[in-house]
């Protein structure tokens, strides 16, 4: 006999009330990152050793700026989800866990905002 209420069972959200959301978003961002990170690796490799003006020229192309922006945002979201799994697994004290989860998101927001502003400064000049 299960103590789970029928409503809770059909909602299918489990004890954390979020169901498979974390798992699913991790996979969706992973799928998106396969082509995006290959694009990034090839682009970055072509810019190795080049002066900064070449990097600026590359990102002044709207398509490259857009792809880089998308890459950074999805990458950081994938990172937040991944590091959250690590924190959930290894940090057991509630206070430390909440602090780590907040720092995880804070780090992603700071790196994301800094990267996007830099990208906009290059793209718009």
């Amino acid at each position, binding site marked *: 006999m299960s103590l789970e209420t029928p409503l809770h069972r059909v909602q299918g959200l489990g004890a954390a009330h979020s169901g498979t959301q974390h798992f699913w978003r991790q996979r969706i961002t992973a799928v998106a990152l396969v082509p995006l990170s290959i694009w990034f690796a090839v682009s970055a490799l072509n810019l190795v050793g080049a002066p900064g003006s070449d990097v600026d020229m590359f990102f002044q192309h709207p398509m490259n700026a857009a792809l880089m922006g998308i890459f950074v945002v999805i990458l950081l979201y994938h990172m937040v989800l*991944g590091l959250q799994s690590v924190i959930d697994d290894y940090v057991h004290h509630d206070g430390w866990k909440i602090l780590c989860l907040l720092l995880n998101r804070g780090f992603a927001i700071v790196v994301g905002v800094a990267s996007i*502003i*830099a990208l906009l400064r290059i793209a718009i000049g």
Partner: protein
Amino acid sequence: MAEQKQHPRPLSPHLQIYRWPVTMATSITHRATGIALSAGTLLLAWWLIAAASGPEAFAKFQAAAANPIGEIVLFGFVWSLAFHLLNGIRHLAWDLGYGFDVATANRTGILVITLSVFAAIAVFIFAYKHGGLHL
């Protein structure tokens, strides 16, 4: 109750007792490279900010990257990305139900390790030959 405690029950040994199968090594390496790549996002942001801030700031970034320590960090970053990308594809295949039997998982594990090392070395050979990077 008290008498029972005199007979020690068999205990399951902890992780370090077991011989490491390939799947176990790739699993923890996937997590480790993920954490390393998280730190690597700082390099990515630095690169973009340096490019946005002008030639002087960008020259500083390039000098740090061409420094032996910088090159070791960059190699670690490139290999981590190669491993996490290839092993990530392996994980996605598993999610779809492919290659989950032990023999295949072991084989793809060795494949991922080998390919990631080759990819990282190939990237650095290309960078030295065409990118004007100096050893």
